[in-house]
């Protein structure tokens, strides 16, 4: 097949003429810019890119991208995106969603899209709060968190998006801080390369209703000591001094210091994102010290589209029906004269 050369884009090619209307200081600006920078690196044509969103602050995202886009209804973006991708598998389809949109009202679509492994990218802006409705607790809000709808403290234990996703069969899961555009850009590019449903959770600060919700992990001063940015094939080492690492102690992950108690770099676990077995990925997702960021799981598996294509090709090959007339006049027909 002839491949046409893809125009060399810059981030400006992906910015629409619409004025961005998020609150000043919101991490959403970082995410938008990171996406606009990542897209030219992906080797996809601009006209083949589609952003589908639900409802919420994050879901205004498509309006700001100069690509095809649809601002859908609350929670349903994964279902809409599934239809787009099944209709035209050549498209690069992105779901933009938030913690309320994907884990509360859209929870059902979220788990099923992951189960099917259709080739989509889902960017989940997790700020542990409902922003657009002005500050109610969300399914990722912490127990005890005081919000407009939990003035005495939230009594509903949260979901961990990563745990839920892996439980639902996610083949690709990455997590990244909302204030680290470089890593975010890399992860967006990797998620596009991945064949299957790629879920990226962004720890996104809401400056108005939940300011500082991730500061303990994402603040520049503590980031290197509190976050471990994992990369496939590399030892899981973190810390300002690069002296901390993860080892398996029985069935638990344990933080050790290289050079103490005889621990050497060789003892540190090497990250295997491509393992089909998600057990260790689940343990990484659950860890709160250090908080794991980067691509935690990236297991190459057959996609829904591939399964459908194979089946369709086989049915077409074996079928005697080429046109509807072949069907309509098949089987038990009779003549009236």
């Amino acid at each position: 097949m002839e491949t046409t050369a893809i125009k060399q884009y810059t981030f400006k090619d992906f910015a629409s003429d619409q004025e961005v209307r998020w609150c000043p200081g919101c991490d959403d600006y970082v995410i938008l810019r990171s996406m606009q920078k990542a897209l030219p690196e992906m080797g996809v044509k601009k006209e083949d890119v589609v952003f589908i969103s639900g409802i919420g602050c994050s879901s205004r995202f498509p309006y700001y991208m100069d690509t095809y886009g649809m601002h859908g209804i609350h929670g349903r973006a994964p279902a809409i995106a599934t239809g787009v991708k099944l209709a035209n598998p050549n498209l690069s389809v992105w779901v933009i969603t938030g913690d309320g949109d994907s884990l509360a009202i859209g929870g059902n679509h979220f788990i099923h899209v992951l189960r099917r492994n259709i080739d989509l990218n889902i960017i989940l802006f997790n700020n542990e709060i409902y922003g657009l409705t002005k500050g109610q607790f969300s399914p990722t809000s912490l127990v005890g968190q005081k919000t407009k709808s939990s003035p005495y403290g939230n009594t509903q234990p949260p979901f961990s998006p990563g745990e839920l996703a892996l439980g639902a069969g996610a083949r690709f899961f990455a997590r990244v801080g909302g204030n680290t555009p470089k890593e975010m850009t890399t992860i967006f590019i990797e998620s596009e390369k991945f064949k299957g449903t790629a879920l990226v959770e962004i720890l996104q600060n809401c400056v108005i209703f939940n300011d500082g919700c991730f500061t303990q992990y994402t603040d520049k001063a503590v980031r290197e000591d509190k976050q471990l940015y994992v990369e496939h094939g590399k030892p899981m080492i973190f810390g300002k001094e690069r002296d901390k690492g993860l080892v398996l102690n029985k069935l638990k992950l344990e933080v050790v210091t290289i050079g103490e108690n005889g621990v050497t770099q060789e003892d540190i676990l090497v990250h295997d994102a491509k393992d089909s077995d998600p057990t260790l990925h689940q343990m990484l997702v659950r860890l709160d010290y250090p908080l794991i960021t980067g691509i935690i799981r990236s297991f190459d598996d057959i996609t829904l589209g591939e399964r459908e294509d194979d089946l369709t090709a086989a049915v077409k090959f074996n079928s005697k029906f080429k046109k509807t007339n072949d069907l309509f006049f098949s089987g038990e027909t009779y003549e009236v004269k």
Partner: protein
Amino acid sequence: MNVENKIAKNTKGQIEVLEAVVIRFVGDSGDGMQLTGTQFSDTSAMFGNDVATFPNYPAEIRAPQGSLYGVSGFQVHIGSMEINTPGDDVDLLVAMNPAGLKTNLYAVKPGHTIIVDTDSFTKKNLEKAQYKTNPLEDGSLANYRIIEVGMTTLTKEALKNVDGLDNKSITRSKNMFALGMVYWMYHRAREHTIDFINKKFKSKPEIIEANTKVLNAGYYFAETLELIPNAYTIVPAKMAPGTYRIIMGNAATAWGFLAAAEKSGLELFLGSYPITPATDILHELVKHKHFGVKAFQAEDEIAGISSAIGAAFAGDLAITTTSGPGLALKGEALGLAMMIELPLVVVNVQRGGPSTGLPTKTEQSDLLQAMYGRNGESPVIVIAASTPSNCFNFAYEASKLALEHMTPVILLTDGYIANGSAPWKIKTVDEMPEIRNNKVSEIKENFHPYDRDQKSLARNWAIPGTPGLEHRVGGLEKDKVTGNVSYVPENHEYMTKIRAEKIKRVQNYIPEIASEFAQKGDLLVVGWGGTYGSLYTAVKQLNDDGFTNIGYAHFNYINPLPKNTEDLFKKFKKIIVCELNNGQFVNVLRIHFNGFEFLQHNKIQGLPFSNSELTEKFKQLVSVSE
């Protein structure tokens, strides 16, 4: 009991010619009554009769054996004349057990025939059917011709030399015994059914042998034992020449979409979630991957329509299929499709409501939901099919209207026509009308997604993958020119009105309403959707009987209504609107045409209209004016 005492013997071999006959097969839900009925109707259709069928089965898959609520029935109406309904009163009832007899006796015409399997009239089964005494012995059936046959025993006898059959397979083939008897009674050939058995059980030769033997045994039993007074025949009906097949409404709906996809050159996408009685459309379309059909069984109703919206955005002919409760769940997404103005067909195979209601029974009570069941000002096209075979035409028409007017279309059918079957004179794609679409494939200067066709007001359809036409759509109100989000008050009013006007203008593209029978006169009978067969038959009968002052207008286009509706109404002194609901279409008409007095005839029993209730009602209305 001596059966022969009850039945006057006739000379063997005498064949009486009938114009039409209604036969009902009833038994346990596992007794194979649907198959038996289908075989009889297919065979009759191939013989040249006009046919209409209606299955009546419980919501439970295998209700407890012998219970009253576990009775499954299948009614066949065959005729040498035009047949438009599965018929009301039954000429022959075949009852495989006491429960079937008890629940269906009401429908049998006095003096007519009932065949019963006496082996099933055990003490236990009689108790389950809540009979205090055996109706075969207590004289309660004196008004009918009862043919008592030990069908289970005779079936076992017929199969005693067939190897490899378990007891269950033996007793399960007794429906073939009943079918064989009825074939003899109505002078039907067995070949079609034998062919069917051979195909269906290709890999099970012992089952083929068993079913064939039992079918023949029933046939010869009826012939030789002289239990049956007459054999009857119904000569072929006068039907337009052509190639026909028997089709069920849901299959016809599915095929209409296949034809529309082929004609329009678009790929067909179905997003659906199983729900009675709509699921057969999904079952049918998933088979047709060879035509490139993408049938997606989603995680719920909302995902069904949402995936279809995604596919429509990406350029497919997109549909979603459901029944009443599912339409309720799809409401918000349907509003989105209306707002972003994408072509989408939503099929609602109506069933008894509200809530879960009567899933396997028919009703027309989703009309107002289809018209108004969304937030905001949210008009869509609403059309309704009226017979099992014209489900094909209206599925095609729904697709055409959706694509040409860039709007969601709700197609209403109902359990009665969806599960009913009738002859269909096969349509080829070549003879169907053209389907245009509004796709934009080239870069235009100053392209705007909401640029509209001046006549129809349909907007552009620029699909992802087209260079230079990148744009965003969404559920927020949009600027009338650019399509960007707009909160400008005047713009919202303008957009609300233009969306309404777009639907109203569809009037210019749909046929006018016409009256069948009287063109003006004393009474106009008005119906819509799946009641066509019942209403047509009733009005025709009255006209044949001299009531030539009655006209009949049947609406397939509900929103918008045909342009000349008011003109037609003016030609009649009285108008009666007949619906299987508590009065929904009549209220739509009252909104539009407030100068008329609309009388109503409503039935909310999960059943179609009966001919007698309609003719009596209409006669009363015209006799007053005479």
